[in-house]
Each structure stands twice: as structure tokens, then as C-alpha cells.
């Protein structure tokens, strides 16, 4: 049972500042960044005003999807937030789907999800202070009654923590269950005498089909849904921090 539920392994150590350890998570993050960069270069090469190539249609579909999502959830005055939400969405989806390649998911590391949730927390605080002033921000904690102060403080802290834990728990829980399943199937193969050893590599025939079927739920479905929910919650909280109506919109005709 050793090796199940342990954190990401250290890949190498930078010798500056007394040794910064670079873990698997960071290396896989670099791979994802490189992959996204190459995909974006490919999708946006030779654009035309009327799309004739499949890759431009795919790019326009994705941009239209994110723009639509941001406008529906946040309202028209937050249209400029679409690039940030698209980054979070793509990073979270690819971070979870990397486990289909046999690597450890980037979002199965609590540091990653906590960082994104803390960014959302900083954004919420910034917009609250910008729209209400520091005094309005502090008074917001005592609304509607003064006795609600500890409860409001708690809910303010619980917001980013719950976002981080939700994504981390789903993805890393799926990884733990999958590795437990692999161990169980290896023991079952030994029992049924279908476990072989080629040099240093063990092959267990019972491991062939069942984990792939379960990974449709744990990797594909769970990864995509949790990424979508993280992006949606970010949008809802940030737009809720600055509720003032849009001044540049034309007033409704009376």
C-alpha cells in the first residue's frame, strides 16, 4: 500500500536559495504550457475573414463558447474577463486530462488549486474595495446585523478554501481510487495465474479493461465538470463583488 495517496515526487532540485525542489506538478505544468502554446499557434495560423479551414472554425467555436459563458454569467460589463476565464478553464481541463496519458494530474496537487482559489479571493477583495471603499468593505461584514461579523468572516475565508478543496478532492480522490483498483487487479491476476514478468516490467492481464472504463468517469467526466464549475464559481463570485449596474449601457426606454 506504499505509494498510494502520497504527494507528487520531486523531479529535480534547483541549487539556488538553498535548494528549491521542482516537483512533478511543476514539470507537467510546463508540458501543458508548451502544449497549449503550440496548439494556439496552430489554430490561429493563416486566419481569414470568412473561415474555410477546420482549425479556424474550432478556434472560433471555443472563443464564442467562452464569450457566451462570460456574458451570460457575469453580464455585459464584464466582457473583458473572458481571457482570464478561458485560461483557468483550459489550464484546469488539461491539468486533469493529463492523467489519461499516465502522468499525475496537475490539479491533484493542492498547491495548484489553492493558488487559483487565492487569485479569485484577491480579485474579490479588490473589486469589493474598489466599488465600496475600504470602509464599505469593512462595513459589509456587519451586514445585515452586527452579530453576523464572525459568520461573514468565516464565509469569506471558506469561499476560496471550498473551491480549492472541491477540485483537489475530486481529482486526487479519483487518482487514489484508480491506484487502489490497479493494486487489487494485480493481486487478482496473481491469483488467477495471469501475471507475467518481462525483464523489470510486470504485466497483469486482469488490468487490461476495467480501469479504462472507470477512467471515463474519474478522469474525463470529473475533470471537465470540476474545471467548468471552478470557472463558473470564479465568474459568479467576482461579478458578485461589484454589483453596480453598467453605466455605459443605454437606459431602458420608458
Amino acid at each position, binding site marked *: 500500500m506504499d505509494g498510494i495517496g*502520497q*504527494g507528487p515526487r520531486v523531479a529535480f532540485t534547483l541549487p539556488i536559495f538553498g535548494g528549491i525542489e521542482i516537483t512533478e506538478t511543476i514539470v507537467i505544468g510546463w508540458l501543458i504550457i508548451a502544449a497549449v502554446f503550440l496548439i494556439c499557434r496552430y489554430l490561429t495560423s493563416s486566419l481569414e475573414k470568412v473561415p474555410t479551414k477546420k482549425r479556424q472554425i474550432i478556434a472560433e467555436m471555443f472563443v464564442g463558447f467562452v464569450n457566451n459563458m462570460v456574458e451570460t454569467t457575469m453580464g455585459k460589463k464584464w466582457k473583458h474577463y473572458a481571457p482570464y476565464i478561458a485560461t483557468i478553464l483550459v489550464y484546469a481541463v488539461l491539468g486533469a486530462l493529463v492523467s489519461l496519458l499516465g502522468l499525475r494530474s496537475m490539479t491533484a496537487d493542492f498547491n495548484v488549486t489553492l493558488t487559483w482559489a487565492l487569485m479569485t479571493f484577491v480579485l474579490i477583495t479588490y473589486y469589493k474595495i474598489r466599488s465600496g471603499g475600504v470602509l464599505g468593505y469593512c462595513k459589509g461584514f456587519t451586514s445585515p446585523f452586527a452579530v453576523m461579523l464572525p459568520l461573514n468572516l468565516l464565509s469569506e475565508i471558506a469561499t476560496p478554501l471550498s473551491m480549492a478543496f472541491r477540485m483537489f*478532492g475530486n481529482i486526487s*480522490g479519483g487518482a487514489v481510487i484508480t491506484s487502489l483498483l490497479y493494486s487489487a487487479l494485480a493481486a487478482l491476476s496473481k491469483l488467477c495465474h495471469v501475471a507475467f514478468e518481462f525483464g523489470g516490467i510486470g504485466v497483469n492481464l486482469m488490468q487490461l479493461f476495467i480501469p479504462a472504463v472507470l477512467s471515463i468517469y474519474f478522469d474525463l467526466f470529473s475533470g471537465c465538470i*470540476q474545471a467548468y464549475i471552478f470557472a*463558473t464559481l470564479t465568474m459568479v463570485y467576482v461579478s458578485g463583488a461589484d454589483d453596480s449596474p453598467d453605466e455605459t449601457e443605454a437606459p431602458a426606454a420608458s
Partner: protein
Amino acid sequence: MLTEKAFVLGCSAIGAGLAMIAGIGPGIGEGYAVGKTIESIARQPEAKGDCTRTMFIGVAMAESTGIYAFVVALILMFANPFIGKL
């Protein structure tokens, strides 16, 4: 009779089991949500896409507290912090 480490490990195992009692909540809540979704689809079959998508979002949100309990149980079983303090 019992070493300290054995006692702490045993209590951690019991704690992990007790933590997963929180799995009842999401089960009941999500079942209720799915039931309401089926009712609304039966009332208006054209809204099936919208109902299903919203249901999935609601189910993933309701799953959160079950996941928190799962994380606590995992930490107690695999990354036990109490052993280091012995």
C-alpha cells in the same frame, strides 16, 4: 500493552471511518435533485438539455461536503499528521 504508535494508528482508522459517515448527505441531496430534474423534464420535454446541464452543475456543488469528508479520511489513512508528532 499497546504502543503509542499502534494506539494513534488505530484511532486514526476509526476516525477515517467516522468521517465517511458524511457520505449520506450528498447521496440524499443529489438523489432529490435528480428526482426534481426528472419531474421537470416530464413536464416539459423540450427543456431536457437545459435541465440536465443545470442538474450536473448542482450535483457537483452538492458533492462538495462529501469530498471534504473524503479528503479528511484520505489524510488520516495515508498522510497521517499525528504520527509525526509522537
